[in-house]
């Protein structure tokens, strides 16, 4: 008699390797997502083979663990300071050995790739864990997963368990590659009270791109979106001496905006980029509210303006603005400094001369595709000029268009002025990307938001002042309680609304705190501490981008200490997995790039080893955490 064993279909073995299981399990507690990707494979060939493991994870996520299990023996990952890890990595790479790293991959993702040699008949398990704080945008939290198995997988599964103490108000899951048939049978989603669940489990036949095909149709985006109940504008959760305070009021009128669009119309914007910009501006103009004010500053070698001062967005003025936008043409060189300062001055003058409503907020939106080469062109000088001219009075948002933009410069420019930077990818949906960005900031409900806690009660607070609170977003503040056993918690949030000043108070008494403690049995207990650490590191890294000298060193040291303590792969750390008896051959590194460099979307795993740690052949390929 023959022993019973699992039989593999030949079509599921590609180049000798059978990937028999890929599972993505997401656990979300209070917006903090803990995701584990596990792939199990067997080398069915008669010789040793290389097995690859690719995961695309959100840029906002930090890897927290990576383990490799070969024939039942597990090799865990160790977080090390980047420089220490790099020596090991360099040694492996210089010998042509296996090494893995994370690199930018498209708009929202970065890619983790690692390959190991597996002996004939051996089994290998890869397990990657990453964590991120889901951010609320336009009224939804979004968890984004990239699904791209290289072959048919016997057990393919995505599951998400969501626990939200405020209660879940909506939950949805969408897959870009899914057909209606697959949707009906392989995807389930449900929520009730505080718990939500999503499961996507296609059978092997459902994975086939056609009934007789052996390649997979699973290739695309899998997105889970949800929101929580908001009976009250704020929610505070306290676990093990750490707290998190979510604040997202709604039902408030929109604060009028004074917007100056500072637009690059230099030669490089010619045709497609300018066409997309104009389309987006025309749509944005449609969405402007009548009590908003606006103007356009166009810069090439010279700076010119639509109007000498800000104009109210009346239907007549919007009509005129549309005509102006339609006739924008590209020309000449790039004078970012000139355009920016003209826009900033215009906003300041409008406020000083009471041309705009007293209760309104001012915003500069800079859109450029290139590097300054006219007028003041040193990035540091432009940044200093903008910083001094704005003086912290209003935010500046930078939109970097295309591949050749100096994104690091634009990001610093925005961060120094209480804004943020976005890349606009020059694809067919660039117009939508621009509109999406505008919609995010189009509806400020509060300005000058300050979150206050009783003095001496709180330690190590994350950012607690914000220039704006936008409709559909959420302010998150976390910290440590001075007294772990305190039984009363109070927080005040102050802000300026469209017509009035508002002061929200959130209080938790002993009874509510005890109720929260009881819920900890269900959730993973230290999530608030990790959420606090994640948020602190993220904000330290942002501050570090705009800091210099000793301040930068201090920020780096603090971020590094927390990254090591909480096992986060950040731009300052790397994770090293070493097989003890053969450490030269089996070194794998999980690393995190920043967005300072540019990796074209076409770059894939094959070039992963080439970039980041070896001197780049051209700056074009350079991707690194710094």
């Amino acid at each position, binding site marked *: 008699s023959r022993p019973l064993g699992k039989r593999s279909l030949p079509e599921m073995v590609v180049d000798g390797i059978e990937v028999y299981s890929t599972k993505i399990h997401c656990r979300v507690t209070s917006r903090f997502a803990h995701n584990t990707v596990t792939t199990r494979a067997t080398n069915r060939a008669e010789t040793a083979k290389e097995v690859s493991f690719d995961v695309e994870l959100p840029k906002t996520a930090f890897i927290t663990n990576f383990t490799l299990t070969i024939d039942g023996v597990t090799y865990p990952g160790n977080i090390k300071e980047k420089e220490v890890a790099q020596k090991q990595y360099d040694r492996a790479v210089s010998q042509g050995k296996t090494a893995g790293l994370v690199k930018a991959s498209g708009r929202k993702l970065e890619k983790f790739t690692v390959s190991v040699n597996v002996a004939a008949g051996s089994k290998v398990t890869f397990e990657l864990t990453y964590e991120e704080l889901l951010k609320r945008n336009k009224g939804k939290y979004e968890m984004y997963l990239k699904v791209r198995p290289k072959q048919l997988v016997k057990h393919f599964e995505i599951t998400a368990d969501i626990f939200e103490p405020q209660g879940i108000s909506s939950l949805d899951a969408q897959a870009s590659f899914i057909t209606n048939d697959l949707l009906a049978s392989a995807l389930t989603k449900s929520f009730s009270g505080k718990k939500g669940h999503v499961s996507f489990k296609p059978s092997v036949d459902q994975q086939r791109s056609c009934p007789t095909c052996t390649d997979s149709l699973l290739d695309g985006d899998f997105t889970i979106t949800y929101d929580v109940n908001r*009976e009250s504008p704020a929610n505070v959760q306290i676990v093990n001496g750490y707290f998190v305070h979510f604040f997202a009021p709604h*039902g408030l009128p929109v604060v009028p905006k004074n917007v100056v669009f500072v637009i690059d119309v230099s030669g490089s914007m010619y045709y497609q980029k300018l066409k997309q910009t104009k389309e987006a501006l025309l749509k944005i103009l449609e969405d402007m509210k009548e009590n908003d004010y606006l103007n356009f500053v166009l810069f090439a070698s010279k700076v010119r303006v639509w109007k000498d001062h800000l104009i109210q967005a009346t239907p007549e003025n919007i009509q005129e603005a549309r005509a102006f936008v339609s006739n924008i043409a590209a020309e000449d060189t790039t004078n970012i400094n000139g355009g920016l300062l003209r826009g900033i001055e215009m906003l300041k003058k409008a406020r000083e001369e009471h041309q705009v409503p007293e209760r309104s907020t001012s915003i500069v939106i800079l859109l450029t595709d290139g590097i300054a080469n006219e007028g003041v062109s040193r990035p540091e000088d432009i940044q200093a000029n903008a910083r001094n001219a704005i003086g912290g009075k209003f935010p500046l948002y930078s939109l970097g268009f295309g591949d050749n933009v100096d994104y690091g410069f634009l990001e610093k420019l925005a961060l120094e002025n209480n804004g943020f930077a976005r890349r606009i990818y020059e694809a067919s949906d660039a117009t939508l990307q621009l509109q999406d960005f505008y919609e995010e900031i189009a509806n400020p409900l509060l300005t000058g938001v300050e979150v206050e806690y009783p003095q001496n009660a709180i330690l190590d607070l994350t950012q607690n002042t914000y220039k704006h609170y936008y409709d559909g977003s959420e302010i998150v503040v976390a910290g440590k309680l001075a007294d772990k056993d305190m039984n009363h918690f109070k927080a005040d949030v102050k802000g300026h609304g469209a*017509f*009035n*000043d508002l*002061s929200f*108070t959130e209080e938790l008494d002993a009874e509510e705190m005890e109720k929260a403690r009881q819920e900890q049995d269900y959730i993973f207990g230290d999530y608030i501490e990790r959420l606090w650490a994640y948020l602190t590191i993220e904000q330290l890294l942002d501050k570090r981008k705009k800091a210099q000298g000793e301040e930068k060193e201090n920020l780096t040291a603090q971020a590094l200490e927390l990254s090591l303590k909480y096992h986060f792969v950040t731009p300052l750390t790397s994770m090293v997995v070493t097989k003890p008896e053969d450490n030269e051959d089996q070194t794998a590194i999980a690393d995190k790039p920043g967005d300072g460099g540019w990796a074209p979307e076409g770059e894939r795993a094959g070039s992963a080893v080439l970039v980041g740690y070896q001197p780049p052949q051209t700056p074009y390929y350079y991707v690194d955490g710094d």
Partner: protein
Amino acid sequence: PHFIIRVPGKNDALCFNIDEDPGTVLRLIHDPVTGLTVHGEIIGDKVASADSKTRNTYFGKLGIANAYLDVRIEVTPEKISLWNGEAQSTFSWLDTVTVTQNGMTMAINRKKNIVLSFGDGVTFVVVLHQVWKKHPVHRDFLGFYVVDSHRMSAQTHGLLGQFFHPLDFEVSDIRPGLDPSKPVATMVVKNHQLKVTRGSQKDYRRDASVGVKVACWFIHNNGEGLLDGDLKDYIVPALF
């Protein structure tokens, strides 16, 4: 709903009920000088009683407007809406929030009350009375209190507003009533002679569930004789 009128000069209080159909909107306060108007909409129990003597009515919606500030506030047991002109802000009774703007402060105290002050003038307190959600008969309702009413103008009128001016009354011939704990008497007020009953009503400003007893002279028949004019004079078509 029941009304309690404190009469400081007499160190006593008057009270009366208004029994109107649910949906009726009453003018409680109107001050043409300060521009303040308060209207209240009546609600009944979940199960309506056909007999007007046994049915309970309450205020289920209050509309407070200040014409000069172009501000309107609508309060229901579910939510609080504030309009500045056409722009609306909505708050929940689960909020603890203070809204301040030129000439007005509104403080919502989570699940308890709203304190609404207009400049250095009058203060209104709206109290939330919550009952058990699954109560077969009763429903949540609102209480309305006026503090520093003397700061409103002499031209203030309305079911409550008419009592913001000095009021005099005389009570005589106090005698036992049908209920021994509730003596009856004869009251002379606003040139009317009325039969009144001694009783008590509750002030819920401090605690919406317990309340403080306020002894008062109860005027029967929808305050007939105490109120200026006819009850119909106080019925208005809408909250604003």
